[in-house]
């Protein structure tokens, strides 16, 4: 089977061997692995199960200086540290009256679209996914500032809902643009949870976000594509709701925030889980043996009946040592059923 077909089988809740996986790296981790192995040929051992493309620039940054830029919403960001940091929101008061809301066309990038088409052609055996950065919940806070947006949703609820609707309108257009690419799925990215639970509480999430997210997922399905969403944190309380509105794949599954095996036993036949290896725990701080044990457990426990894609909760972060990155790679290959000798 092609990598694409294996991923589709899992999403259709049919178990596969090998188990598909995604392993991506942030700044420098992959070059550290080149040094660790003394060659870059380890890269060829990772089958390209899932390949990401985009036709959208989610920020449209205008540089202010070497470490700051203004995005198309007027928000000013610093990239002096990790992650990028909002210095000044673009939408300064809880009103859209005097605000020049950027049109959706602002963010569509022809060069990115051209690149996306080339990548889709090159990786036609892969499960291709189009994304567009910030999610429906995130855009209000990158426009208003986090604390303002969170206050707005309680004390300026009408404005907050109006803002959500404007963002939804924009994101529905992004779905249309993304669906024109020859992709298999559209992937959203929207952090609804913190370490403890749903940031704004499940009831408020159901009232403000659920019906709007449902429209986005319906739009994706109308185009015959799968819906995927990255979401950090603990969203256990709203998983039935997420399933109800049509999310096919939930990515990240931070084990420090949610128990992957509990999720599997409660909802494993209704939604596909992607991730599960701890980016706040075993990946940066574990021993090789602990990493191997966690990956073995995930492969044995999460893929029964399909509905699982193996992965780290986040792309391997810059602080990941070469030895631990190698342990993750080797454990992924071994326990997911791939030829496991690396170089």
């Amino acid at each position, binding site marked *: 089977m092609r990598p694409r077909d294996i991923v589709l089988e899992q999403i259709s809740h049919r178990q596969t061997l090998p188990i598909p996986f995604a392993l991506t790296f942030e700044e420098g981790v992959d070059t550290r692995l080149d040094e660790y192995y003394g060659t870059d040929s380890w890269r060829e051992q990772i089958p390209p199960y899932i390949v990401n493309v985009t036709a959208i620039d989610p920020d449209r940054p205008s540089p202010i200086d070497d470490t700051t830029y203004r995005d198309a919403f007027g928000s000013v960001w*610093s990239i002096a*540290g*990790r992650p990028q*940091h909002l210095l000044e929101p673009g939408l300064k008061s809880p009103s859209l009256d005097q605000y020049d809301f950027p049109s959706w066309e602002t963010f569509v990038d022809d060069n990115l679209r051209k690149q996306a088409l080339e990548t889709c052609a090159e990786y036609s055996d892969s499960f291709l996914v189009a994304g567009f950065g910030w999610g429906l919940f995130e855009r209000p806070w990158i426009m208003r500032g*986090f*604390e303002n947006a*969170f*206050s707005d*949703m*309680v*004390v300026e609820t009408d404005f907050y809902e109006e803002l959500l609707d404007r963002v939804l309108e924009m994101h529905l257009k992004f779905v249309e643009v993304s669906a024109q690419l020859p992709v298999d799925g559209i992937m959203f990215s929207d952090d609804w949870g*913190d*370490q*403890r*639970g*749903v*940031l*704004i*509480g499940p009831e*408020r999430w159901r009232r403000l976000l659920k019906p709007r997210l449902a429209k986005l997922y319906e739009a994706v399905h109308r185009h015959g594509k799968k819906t995927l969403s990255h979401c950090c944190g603990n969203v256990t309380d709203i998983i039935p709701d997420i399933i109800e509105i049509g999310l096919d794949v939930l990515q990240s599954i931070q084990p*420090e925030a949610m128990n992957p095996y509990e999720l599997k036993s409660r909802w494993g036949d209704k939604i596909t889980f992607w991730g599960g290896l701890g*980016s*706040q*725990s075993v990946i*940066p*701080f574990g021993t090789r043996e602990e990493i191997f044990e966690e990956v073995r457990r995930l492969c044995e426990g999460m893929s029964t009946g399909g509905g699982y894609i193996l992965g780290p909760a986040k792309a391997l*972060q*810059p*602080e990941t040592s070469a030895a631990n990155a190698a342990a993750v790679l080797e454990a992924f290959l071994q326990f997911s059923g791939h030829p496991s000798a690396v170089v």
Partner: protein
Amino acid sequence: MSVIDDLKQAVIRGDRAKAKELAEQARSEGASARAIVVEGIAPAMAIVGEKFRANEFFVPELLIAQRAMKEALGVLAGEVTDHIGTVVIGTVKGDLHDIGKNLVAAMLEGAGFKVVDLGVDVAPDRFVSAAQESDANVIAMSALLTTTMGAMKDTVRILGEAGMSGRVRVMIGGAPVTQSYAEEIGADGYAPDAASAVSTAKSLSG
């Protein structure tokens, strides 16, 4: 209900305009700054904390209560001098995340602590020197990145080298931080959220 009771309710529901108005009214009717804090603001924030722990309140409610609290405290600016302790707080070196740290600072202030907020990207020796300068009981450190957590260990070490470990206790928090990490680095306390941070700070200030 008394004016201070009304003020308490205004803070709990996050009504910043009312909180300010009622703090001013209470002062003009002769209530002391201490009474306003001890009978109004501090119990309000304690209730906010309980509701947060009970999953009745979430981050939005915490934020608006904090804003209302700050409006009320602003009316009393400089008049509250008998604090229950002093906490130096900040996000560690290399880390710019501050929302959680700000919530903890607000909860501590609401509970009656003097809070010295060093902001973000705070070097280990800065925590220690600020604790010295302000005669603090507690250093509270926040980190959201696994990369930056190590700075907490450095602060504990520098505090020990300065001979201040017995006098100044250290508490830590933040998404990747755990109780076992606190034990590993010799911190005195750990709190998983802003509400628990108040009780941890109280127990560490003796």
